[in-house]
C-alpha cells in the first residue's frame, strides 16, 4: 500500500528541478520511479548531490538510505561533479585485446588520472565503460560525447592535454 506523504519543495529555485519534478510526476511520484528520477536529476545537474538524493527520495516516498543504496549500486550514477571534459575509455573485450590497457596506462602516466578520477586542474575526468558496443572501432573512447575509434594512446593524451 502506498503511504501518503507530503511532497517536498525543490531544494532551490533552480529551474532544472522542474524537469526532475515533471519526470517524477509522469510516473505518479511512486517509489518505482526512483531510477528514472535519478537519471533525470543527473541529466539536469551532471551529478547527484545529497540535495538531489533527498529531494527525489522525499518526493517518491523512498527512505534516504534506500535512495543512497540505489544511487551507489549503479555505476552510471555519479555522486561527485565531473571535470570540464570527460573521456570514457571502453574496456570491452575487443578494446581490451586491441590496447585499452595501453590507453589507460598512458592516461595514468601522463595525466596522472586513473578511472573515475579527475585531473588535479579539474579539466578532464576519466571514466571507463564495460563496452560501448563500438567493437569495430576498438580501441574506442568517447571524448565529450564524441566516439573516437582506433585510438592511439599518445595522440589521445595530446588531445586531452590541449583541452
Amino acid at each position, binding site marked *: 500500500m502506498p503511504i501518503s506523504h507530503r511532497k517536498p519543495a525543490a531544494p532551490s529555485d533552480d529551474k532544472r528541478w522542474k524537469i526532475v519534478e515533471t519526470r517524477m510526476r509522469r510516473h505518479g511520484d511512486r517509489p518505482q520511479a526512483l531510477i528514472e528520477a535519478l537519471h533525470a536529476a543527473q541529466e539536469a545537474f551532471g551529478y547527484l548531490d545529497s540535495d538531489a538524493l533527498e529531494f527525489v527520495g522525499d518526493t517518491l516516498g523512498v527512505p534516504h538510505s534506500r535512495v543512497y543504496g540505489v544511487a551507489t549500486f549503479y*555505476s*552510471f550514477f555519479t555522486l561527485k561533479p565531473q571535470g570540464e571534459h570527460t573521456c570514457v575509455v571502453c574496456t570491452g573485450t575487443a578494446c581490451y585485446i586491441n590496447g585499452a590497457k595501453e590507453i589507460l596506462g598512458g592516461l595514468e602516466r601522463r595525466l596522472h588520472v586513473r578511472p573515475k578520477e579527475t585531473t588535479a586542474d579539474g579539466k578532464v575526468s576519466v571514466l571507463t565503460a*564495460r563496452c560501448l558496443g563500438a567493437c*569495430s572501432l576498438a580501441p574506442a573512447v568517447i571524448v565529450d560525447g564524441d566516439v573516437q575509434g582506433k585510438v592511439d594512446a599518445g595522440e589521445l593524451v595530446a588531445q586531452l592535454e590541449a583541452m
Partner: protein
Amino acid sequence: MSEMPAAGRPLRRRVITEEVHEGPARATAYVCEAASCLSAQSHDVTVRLGERAAEAGLTDVAVKRVGCIGLCAAGPLVEIAETGQLFERVRPDDVEPVVGALKRVKPGDARRPQGPFFEKQVRVATENFGRVDPESLDDYLAAGGYEALRRVLSEMTSTEVRDGITGSGLRGRGGAGYPTGLKWTTVAKAQGAQKYVICNADEGDPGAFMDRSVLESDPYRILEGMAIAAFAVHATEGYIYCRAEYPLAVARLRTAIRLAQRAGYLGAGIMDTSFTFDVQIRLGAGAFVCGEETALIASVEGRRGTPRPRPPYPAVQGLWDCPTLINNVETFASVPAIVRRGPGWYAAIGAGKSRGTKVFALAGRVVNTGLVEVPMGMALREIIFDIGGGIIDGRPFKAVQTGGPSGGCIPAEHLDKPVTYESLIELGSFMGSGGMIVMDDTSCMVDVAKYFQDFCRDESCGKCTPCRVGTTQLWMLLDLITRGEATLADLAQLERLAGIVQRMSLCGLGQGAPNPIFSTLRYFRDEYLAHIVEKRCPAGVCAISQPAEVMA
C-alpha cells in the same frame, strides 16, 4: 564501472533523411547511420552526398539514412541500393565516387554479388538492416512491417500464435536458449489478471553489440514483436529495459514508440481491434547483473538490481509479482518474421535443436569486424574466416571467445564445429547473447581469463557470498599466476574454488563466472603451466617479475 555521459544527450545533429527529389527515385544511396558508422561521421556523409547530388543536377536520386549495413570495420558505409555496390570508409569530403555511381545506375540494374561477408549470411532478425530508415514508420510498413501483427490480430488466436512460436523452434537469444514457445505458454497459463512483457535490452557482455544494432536499425520491429508476444500471453503493458549507454538506441526507440502510438500500433485498440498494449522505456544505469531476469525486474521496480533465487520464475511471479514474459531483443526481432513467413520456414533453418538464425557481433582480431546473422549450425571457421575475412595481418588464429563473461575460449582444433547451443556448451563455452571475439597469438589466455574475472568481480552485485567474495579470490589467484608468483597448489586451489563458485552462486553471473577459467584451463593449460613452472608468459603479455623471495 561503466560510466558515461548522461543518456539522451543531444545527438550530433538532428538526423533526417536527405530527400533530393519528390517521387520514385531511379537510384538510391543507403548511408549507414548506426552507431559505429555514425561515430565515423556518416551523418556528414549523408548531408554532403545530398548536397553534391543536387549540385550535380541529379534530380531522380535519393540519399537515405539506413540502419547497420553490417561491415562495421569499414565504415562509414554507403551502398547503392539498385546495384549493391558498396563504398567503404567514405569521407564527407570525398563523396564523388558515390555520386558517380548514382549517375550510372540504369533501370533494370541487378544487384551484384557482394562477397562472402554478405552472401553467406541469412538475415531474419536483421532483414531490414541497411534497407529501412530506422526512424521511419512508413519505411518499416513498406518493408512488410506490422503485417505479422495484423495477421495475428485478425486471423489468429493466442494459442495459435504460441503454437506457431513453439513450432518454429525459436529459443531465447539472450544466451541460455530456453524454448521461447514454452516460456510464452507458461506466462499465458499463469494465474493473474495483470501480465507484463519485458524486452531485455540490457546488453552487457563486453564485445557484444547485436541488440544495440537491432534497436538502432529496426526499432519498430521490437515493438511489433513485443505486441505479438503480449497478444499471445494476454499482457497489456510492456517495458523495454535498455542500457543508458546506448543513447542512439534509446532516442530511436523513443521516436518509434511515439510514432507507433500515433499510428495506432501501440495503445488502446491496436489496428482497430480490442487489443490494447503499450510500451515504456526503462533505462538501465550501468549494472551488468541487470541482464539477469530477476535483477532486471528489481531494477524496473526502481530498486537495486540484485537477483533473487528462482523459483518462483518471473513467468509466474515477475514484475510486481505478476506473471511476466522476459525475452531479449533478438528474440522479439525474430518473431514478426516467423509469424509472417510461417513457423515451418523458420524451423527449416538451423541444425539439431538450434533452429533459425543467430546474430553475432564479430570483433577482436578479425578483419571484418561487424554484425552478422547466420543459420544456426554454421561452422566457426566459416563465420570467422569466410565471413570474417580471417585474422588481421594474417597472424595465427588462437581462440574465439563466445558467450561473454559466462562463456569460454574455443581453440583452433574446434573451428570446424557447428555453432549451436548444444555444441558450444559441449566445447565448454556458451552461446550467450552473440559476442564473438577472435584472438590471435598476441593474446595470453591466462590474461584473458583474468580480464573476464575482473569483469565479473566488478559487476558482482554483492548479494551472495560465493560470487561477492569468490570472484575476487579467483581473480587474486589468476593475478598471482600472471605475475609468476603462483605455485601448482595455487592452480589446484583455483580449480577447486571455480567449481564452488559455479555451484553455490545465486544467479547466472556467479554461476557462469568460472567458465572462462574452465575453458582456458581445458584448452590452454600449458599456458598456465608456463606462467607457474617456467615463470614466463608465452604470448609476452604478462609482466612476470623475477621469482620473489617472499610470497605475500
